[in-house]
């Protein structure tokens, strides 16, 4: 595998990216251990961490680009590509398994025509495996576009997905 650090020639940042980067660095550059919170600001603002921000991050924190890349790729939460329009995170952990999470996952994959851990090619949906949302007494649990839902059965899942403005499948309707 080749190191995926960006080339030395700087890629220009979009105005939104520049603004998010300025915001992240203004808050966190001087803080001890500020890289992680800075990455959170970037992802919260932009939905992902654009690889083009890497050289500036590295310089601001006195790290090599490889180190920053290492941090971003180590954590499951951070992503370097834009997220899909809608995200469904399904809890896969034991407490939800005990309440039928495996069957629910299968149903979600069928309904959305998307494999767990992947983004659909039309970019409408991404289906993520989540390990524990802290709703373990009320499983199975999921997070749909940032909102938590508990005690989700087959019927409820269908209703939740049907209420999302984007059609679950591009071919449908």
């Amino acid at each position: 595998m080749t190191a995926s650090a960006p080339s030395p020639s700087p890629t220009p940042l979009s105005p939104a990216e520049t603004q998010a980067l300025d915001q992240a660095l203004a808050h966190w550059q001087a803080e001890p251990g500020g890289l992680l919170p800075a990455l959170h600001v970037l992802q919260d603002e932009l939905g992902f961490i654009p690889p083009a921000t890497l050289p500036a991050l590295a310089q601001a924190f006195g790290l090599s680009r490889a180190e920053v890349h290492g941090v971003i790729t180590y954590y499951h939460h951070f992503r370097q590509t834009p997220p899909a329009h809608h995200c469904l995170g399904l809890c896969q952990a034991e407490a939800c398994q005990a309440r039928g999470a495996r069957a629910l996952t299968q149903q979600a994959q069928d309904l959305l025509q998307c494999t767990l851990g992947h983004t659909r090619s039309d970019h409408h949906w991404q289906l993520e495996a989540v390990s524990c949302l802290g709703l373990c007494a009320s499983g199975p649990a999921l997070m749909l576009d940032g909102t938590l839902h508990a005690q989700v059965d087959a019927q409820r899942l269908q209703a939740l997905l049907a209420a999302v403005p984007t059609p679950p499948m591009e071919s449908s309707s």
Partner: protein
Amino acid sequence: MSTVTVYVPRDSAARALGADAVATAVLQETRQRGQHIHLVRNSSRGLFWLEPLVEVQVGARRLAYGPVQAQDVAALLDSGMLEGGQHPLALGSIEDHPYLQQQERLTFARMGITDPLSLSDYAAHEGWRGLHQALDRTPQQIVQEVLDSGLRGRGGAGFPAGIKWKTVLDAPGSQKYIVVNADEGDSGTFADRMVLEGDPFLLIEGMIIAALAVGATQGYVYIRSEYPDAVAVMEQAAQLARKAGYLGPDILGSGRSFDLQVRKAAGAYVCGEETALLESLEGKRGIVRAKPPLPALRGLFGQPTVINNVLTLAAVPFILARGAQAYAHFGQGRSRGTLPFQLAGNLRQGGLVEKAFGVTLRQLVQDFGGGTASGRPIRAIQVGGPLGAYLPISLLDTPMDYEALSAVGGTLGHGGVVVFDESVHMAQQAHYAFTFCAQESCGKCTPCRIGSARGAELIETLLAHPQQAAQHSVLLRDLCNTLLQASLCAMGGMTPFPVLSALNHFPQDFHLPAESFPAP
């Protein structure tokens, strides 16, 4: 009529079950009827099968209704809910509910009762009493109180908190830190989340007391990114506490200084391991450090650091306010005090049960939990998170304390109890334990990084070739032994717990294909 106080929890589990819509409906419906109410978004009582749980203050009592959905609100008001009227969802005085009556809530004393972000609520319910005690004492006296209470780390390792604090107190260092491990990644656990969302000043008080005890001036609360509500509440609570003079350069005019910062984790399970957490707080990859040096001597940024779980620090205000003996009075053997157990998985009555150590597993899952939600018999119970053992029903009478769980090849961990009914396939669960470890291993040590992947493959092979099961299970046990003995931290070192317990207690499942079990 006068203004009635109505409570609808703001806990994220209640919200995931529709509490926000219920709160909106209560406001709308009462306004339409010209009824005046004061709506409080309280914390959750932890009786999750009854959430959203609506409470109405009637005289000195709080009468409850649950589980309430938004569409029930009109009918509830028609039945005179604001005066405690009868309705099929009526539960009577919530404090008299047997699920609460039979608990020993020391740490969770305020849970479900107060508005989490109300400083006056907190103060009116014994808040800050521990801190005031601590401000009048020397660091040595505070440490001694915690030592005498017998409090052990609630994160899983069970190390005596007082000894950790004493080490930091005695360590030379110009800057010392208090770090809260709120990276509650274990499936089946939600007690940290409840404290962070439902009683944040309790944690802040515990942190300040720890800081006074060891001479720390800066604290960090490391909260997992899967808990956005917890992050938001803690940040607001810290701001309120700062404004009120509990945090900052001059705590309540004492001349002592302490402040804290909330830091969001980024979805790495292994960062719940203390040294990986410290690396992550330093802005690095969350890779486990070799010990020694202990974090107490060289922790965050190389400085002496108290790193404690949320529940450990949350137990401290009670100990200071009521005295070490009041806390140590509960529990048995070397497990003193109480543990907030979390009943989860396939249970009719899942929730938070704070009991003294020594309560049996049977009492928890049958008396409190009410048996399975599915109605099928219980088959296995995983105690202590994803690295905890699967216990069969023959071990239901195991008392819940650190030593007793250890004696049956398990761990109490963070107090999570996950119940499975007879549809569970234990080889599949053992396989999951290995794949979870492979996914979440930090990669620093070989047994964990490689062993977990090989373990998952081995179980697949074993299930595919049942005729060679005996041979493969010897290999599996050998592999588990390597992980147990040679891993750097508990991630690899305890992944064999669920695997070996499944193999020991449910050997028949390693000879049967998954299809032979009914779907849960």
